[in-house]
């Protein structure tokens, strides 16, 4: 079997595995939408505050955050299903098979990236029904969903690294609030212009702030190549770090098994 075919087969397994376990997918699909619905209704008046960027609604302001949040949620399932695989012995069988070892990793990560991409468009469809207008049009939306894919791949790789390291799906799910926390400590839910004090310092030091702001721009202002490239670069850097760490973790795990 060629390497490309192996990647394809393992990605397919990963995507199908995700879709076939609805319990794992439901939080990823519902929680971000629930937060979007709640915040849009609760915080819509806040767009009148002086300094708030010009937006149609809080829904429009927050939509990009919701897409990235969905990518985060979905990505953690990659790590926890990797841990479940290790607990369940699938991993040993895969090691024993003559599959290229990096395909184990890439298959998993590609699976969540594809899932995040699809999920972004599903969110788009739902939010459109509730009045969302993406200023950057379909191109802007495509940019946003690409960034979501790379973010999912990055967090997926990181949680795979963690899953491989700990071998416990519970530990990976326990680590999920970390991703959630990092997002909260950024300008994901409110504009930086309205922050002050120590929190502003934290949000400014958090690369997630810039990533979100650049994809949000595609939604609230219009399509921008330079901002899209910046967002992709931040997500790409995170992905590279995730790949290195999970590669190291995989090597460690293989040493243990052999």
């Amino acid at each position, binding site marked *: 079997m060629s390497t490309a075919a192996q990647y394809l087969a393992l990605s397919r397994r990963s995507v199908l595995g995700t879709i076939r376990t609805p319990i794992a997918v439901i939080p990823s699909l519902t929680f971000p939408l629930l937060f979007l619905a*709640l*915040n*849009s*209704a*609760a*915080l*819509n*008046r*806040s767009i*009148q*505050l*002086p*300094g708030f960027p010009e937006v149609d609604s809080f829904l429009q302001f927050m939509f990009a955050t919701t897409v990235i949040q969905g990518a985060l949620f979905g990505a953690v399932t990659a790590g926890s299903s990797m841990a479940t695989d290790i607990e369940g012995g699938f991993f040993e069988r895969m090691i024993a098979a003559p599959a290229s070892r990096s395909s184990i990793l890439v298959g998993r990560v590609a699976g969540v990236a594809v899932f995040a991409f699809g999920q972004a468009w599903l969110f788009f469809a739902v939010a459109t029904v509730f009045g969302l207008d993406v200023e950057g049009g379909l191109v802007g939306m495509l940019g946003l969903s690409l960034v979501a894919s790379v973010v999912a791949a990055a967090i997926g790789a990181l949680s795979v690294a963690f899953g491989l390291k700990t071998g416990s799906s519970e530990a990976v799910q*326990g680590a999920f*609030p970390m991703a959630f*926390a990092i997002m*909260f*400590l950024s*300008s994901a*839910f*409110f504009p930086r212009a*309205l*922050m*002050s*004090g120590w*929190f502003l310092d*934290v*949000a400014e030091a958090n690369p997630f702030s810039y990533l979100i702001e650049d994809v949000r721009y595609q939604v609230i202002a219009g399509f921008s190549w330079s901002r899209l490239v910046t967002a992709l670069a931040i997500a790409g850097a995170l992905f590279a770090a995730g790949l290195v760490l999970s590669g190291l973790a995989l090597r460690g795990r293989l040493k243990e098994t052999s």
Partner: protein
Amino acid sequence: MSAAAVTWGIAERSVKLIPRVPSTFIPSLVMPVFLTIAFSGPFASLVDLPGFPADHILDWVVPFTALQGCAFAGITTGMGLARDLENGFYDRILMSPAPRSALLWGAFVATILRAGIALALMLLVGVVSGAHFRDGIVGIAALTIAGLGLAFAAGAWAIGLALRFKTQQIAPLMQTGVFLSTFLSTAQMPVELMTGWLDDVASVNPVTYVLALARQGFLGDVTWAVTQDGLLALGGMIVVLVAFAYRGMQKVIP
């Protein structure tokens, strides 16, 4: 047979188990602290909105996250009960002649004790973060009643679920109930500043009134009108959910 001794025996065990199953209880303490940061940090300038009832965002957020912390600490009793039912330990308890209601009240007392720990922590967070206890001890008393009362209701909800499903896998449903009921209230905004559907939901959600009871001492003076509504809402929730727990017990034991 002393029902009080049984109640206390069950409650004492539950409290003793807190440090022995840290993975259940610690998150219920970490989360409200984190949410305090997450809901005050980014949204500090909400207080500048015309008609916003607080001068400082922490006065608005701390009572809310304190209530949430109490409720989440409260449902850990239900998780413990689910564990006992799942691994068979509860069979041992049920085969004893201890009065069934004493067993339930043991779990309720444990719920309130556990919530007390979360409440103490959140009061500390309030002091450290600089929330204003404008009505002093009276305000703290109002928060305590609201927090422990809500924990009682949440605990009864979780205990009722545990008795029906007898598995720890039901924990996410316990949490979702608390999440939805607390967020679909005036968690972030007063009803007057909401738009769309949320104001309708929040105005009929009893948690909104419990939250008002908890918040009043942080925003100004404690008033009887607000207190009364809060107590009524608490009473209603507790009666309904305790009945839910009792029915669950009847389903477990012939």
